[in-house]
C-alpha cells in the first residue's frame, strides 16, 4: 500500500515499546567454555554443549551473571532469584531445537531509564538467554523465501545475551532512538557489552501501535524485528506509524503480526505466513539449577559500578560553565557541544577529555580534539593511556606543537596503541620552534614579499593567510600559525 510518511499520522499517537538484545562481553559462552568471539572462522568455537551432542550439560557462566546484574542495577531493576526455561522451536539456528532463556522468573525485574530529554521509560525486565547461530541462505536472491539450502555457523550459538524489554512508554521515533542510544551508553559504561549495532552485538525489535491522539487505550500492535541501526529504527517506525494510521483512517483494523523492515524500500511488510502464532512450549530447564543472587554479591557489584552516562555528561558540561566558557557558543553551538559530549560518553572516550582538561587544556580544545580526532578511531582511542593523551594536548596548548603536528602525533599514538607524545614529536622532526626563530622567519618572508606586505598593511587582512603559507613553507610546517599571525600584527602596528 502507498503510505505518506510525511503527514499520514496526523491525529494519531504512536505507542512504542522496545526489546533490545545485547551480547554480554564475556570471554566464553553462557553455558560452555567456548570463546565468545566475533568474526572467527565458522564453527571453530563449538563444543559438545553448544552443538547439543548427547550427554552434554550446560553450566552457567558466572561472569555473564555478574554483567547482567550490573545492567540490572544501572537500570534500577530488582535483582532477584530466577530460573531458566527452554523455549522450543524448529529452526536450524539452534542445534538443540530450543533456546535456553528466562521466562516467568527473570534475573532483573522492573526498573527504568531516564532519557536525556527528560522522559522516564519503564523497564519491564532484563533477562539472560543464549544467542543463536548464524544462518546464510543460498540460492535464489539469497533471502530465505527462495533459498535452495542454508549454511549454519554455530560460533554465535550460546553466546550470552541480555534481553532488555521496555514498557510501552515511548511516544515517537525520536524518543525510541534516544532510548536506544542512552541504553547503549549505559551498557558500555557498565562494561557489560560492546553494544555495536553494526556488528550485531546489539539488536532492536520494536512493538508499535497507534491510537487517536489523547486516547488512553492500547490498540493492536505490530512487531518489527531485527533493526540493525538507529537510522533503520527511526525509518521503520516512521513508516509503520503512518501505515497503521492510514489503516484506521480508511476504516480497517491493524492485524497483530510480525513485520520486516526493508532497508531498500523503507517499508515494512508482513513476515508471518498464515501459520498459527508461535507456541514455544516453555518449560523449566531441568539441566540448570535456580540462580539466587545473594545480597552480598549484589551489593558488591553495585559498589563496583562506575559513574553512569548521565552523571558523566553533566560533569563534563560543568567544566564548560565553570571555565566561563561558551564564548562564541550560541544556542546552536551549545546543542552541538551537547551532542559531542554525549557521543564521547556513549563511546567511553570522555576519560581522554578529562585527562587533557586536568592537564590544563581548555575544555573547548580538549572536546574538539577528542570528538573530532580521537573519536574517529574509537577502538584505538579506547586503548590509549589517557595521561599520555593529555600530555599531547598540553603540548598543543603550550604552543609546542601546531594543530597539524598534533594530529600527526596522535595518529602515531593510535597506530601503536601507546607512546610518549614528546618522543613521537621528536621522532617526526616536530622540534619546538621558538618564538625567536618564528619571528625571524616572518621578517624574512615580509622582506621578500614587499608588495603583499604593503597590501596587508593597508588593511587586506586576508593576506595573512599568504604570509602564514610562506612561513610554513620556509619552516616546513613547524611554525605555529597563531604565533605567525601575532608577529605579523605586531610588525604592522610598529610599521
Amino acid at each position, binding site marked *: 500500500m502507498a503510505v505518506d510518511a510525511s503527514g499520514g499520522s496526523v491525529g494519531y499517537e504512536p505507542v512504542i515499546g522496545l526489546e533490545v538484545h545485547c551480547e554480554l562481553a564475556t570471554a566464553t559462552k553462557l553455558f560452555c567454555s567456548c570463546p565468545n568471539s566475533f568474526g572467527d*572462522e565458522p564453527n571453530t568455537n563449538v563444543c559438545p554443549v553448544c552443538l547439543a551432542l548427547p550427554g552434554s550439560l550446560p553450566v552457567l557462566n558466572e561472569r555473564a551473571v555478574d554483567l547482567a546484574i550490573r545492567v540490572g542495577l544501572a537500570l534500577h531493576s530488582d535483582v532477584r532469584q530466577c530460573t531458566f526455561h527452554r523455549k522450543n522451536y524448529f529452526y536450524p539456528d539452534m542445534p538443540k531445537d530450543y533456546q535456553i532463556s528466562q521466562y516467568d522468573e527473570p534475573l532483573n525485574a522492573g526498573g527504568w531509564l531516564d532519557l536525556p530529554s527528560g522522559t522516564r521509560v519503564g523497564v519491564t525486565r532484563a533477562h539472560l538467554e543464549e544467542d543463536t547461530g548464524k544462518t546464510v541462505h543460498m540460492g535464489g536472491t539469497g533471502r530465505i523465501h527462495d533459498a535452495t539450502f542454508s549454511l549454519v555457523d554455530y560460533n554465535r550459538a550460546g553466546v550470552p545475551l541480555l534481553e532488555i524489554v521496555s514498557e510501552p512508554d515511548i511516544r515517537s521515533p525520536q524518543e525510541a532512538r534516544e532510548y536506544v542510544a542512552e541504553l547503549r551508553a549505559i551498557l558500555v559504561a557498565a562494561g557489560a557489552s560492546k553494544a555495536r549495532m553494526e556488528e550485531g552485538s546489539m539488536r532492536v525489535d520494536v512493538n508499535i501501535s497507534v491510537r487517536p491522539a489523547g486516547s488512553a487505550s492500547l490498540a493492536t500492535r505490530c512487531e518489527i524485528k531485527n533493526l540493525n541501526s538507529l537510522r533503520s529504527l527511526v525509518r521503520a517506525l516512521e513508516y509503520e506509524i503512518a501505515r497503521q494510521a492510514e489503516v484506521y483512517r480508511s476504516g480497517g483494523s491493524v492485524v497483530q503480526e510480525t513485520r520486516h523492515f526493508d532497508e531498500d524500500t523503507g517499508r515494512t511488510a508482513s513476515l508471518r505466513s498464515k*501459520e498459527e502464532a508461535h*507456541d514455544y512450549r516453555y518449560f523449566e530447564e531441568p539441566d540448570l539449577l*535456580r540462580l539466587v543472587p545473594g545480597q552480598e554479591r549484589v551489593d558488591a557489584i553495585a559498589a563496583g559500578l562506575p559513574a553512569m552516562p548521565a552523571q558523566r555528561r553533566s560533569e563534563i558540561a560543568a567544566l564548560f560553565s565553570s571555565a566561563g566558557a561558551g564564548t562564541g557558543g550560541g544556542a546552536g553551538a551549545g546543542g552541538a557541544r551537547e551532542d559531542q559530549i554525549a557521543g564521547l560518553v556513549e563511546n567511553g572516550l570522555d576519560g581522554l577529555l578529562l585527562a587533557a582538561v586536568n592537564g590544563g587544556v581548555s575544555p573547548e580544545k580538549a572536546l574538539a580534539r577528542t570528538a573530532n580526532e580521537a573519536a574517529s578511531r574509537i577502538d584505538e582511542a579506547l586503548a590509549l593511556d589517557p595521561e599520555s593523551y593529555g600530555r599531547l594536548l598540553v603540548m598543543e596548548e603550550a604552543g609546542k606543537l601546531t594543530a597539524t603536528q598534533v594530529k600527526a602525533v596522535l595518529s602515531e599514538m593510535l597506530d601503536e596503541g601507546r607512546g610518549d607524545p614528546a618522543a613521537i614529536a621528536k621522532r617526526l622532526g616536530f622540534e619546538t620552534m621558538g618564538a625567536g626563530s618564528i619571528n625571524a622567519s616572518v621578517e624574512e618572508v615580509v622582506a621578500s614579499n614587499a608588495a603583499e606586505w604593503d597590501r596587508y598593511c593597508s588593511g587586506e587582512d586576508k593576506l595573512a593567510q599568504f604570509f602564514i603559507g610562506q612561513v610554513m613553507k620556509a619552516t616546513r610546517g613547524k611554525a605555529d600559525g597563531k604565533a605567525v599571525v601575532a608577529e605579523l600584527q605586531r610588525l604592522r602596528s610598529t610599521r
Partner: protein
Amino acid sequence: MTGERITIEQAAHVARLARLDVTGDELALYTMQLEAVLEYAGQVAAVDTSSVQPTAHATPAENVMRKDEPGECLERDDVLREAPESMDGMFLVPRILGEAP
C-alpha cells in the same frame, strides 16, 4: 490432569508443533494413548502435598556456576564429518520452510 480429557484438537495441535504428519486414524489412536499417559502421570496429583514445601528442582542446590575461562573446542573437521552435509566450513541444511522465531 485427573478428570480432564485431552481432545482430538489438542492432540492435533501437539502433532503440528512437533512437525508430525499424522493421519486421522493415527490421531484418534494417539489421543487415547496420550490420555492414558497423562492419566498415569496424573496419579501423582492424588498425593497429599499440603505439608510439602514447593521446590523448583529435584536437586536441592543452587548457583552452580563456572569461571569465565575459555576451554577446548572441537576440531571443525571432526564436527562437520558427523554432519549429513557441509560446505565452506558450515553445516549445510535443507531449505528452511519455517520462520525464525
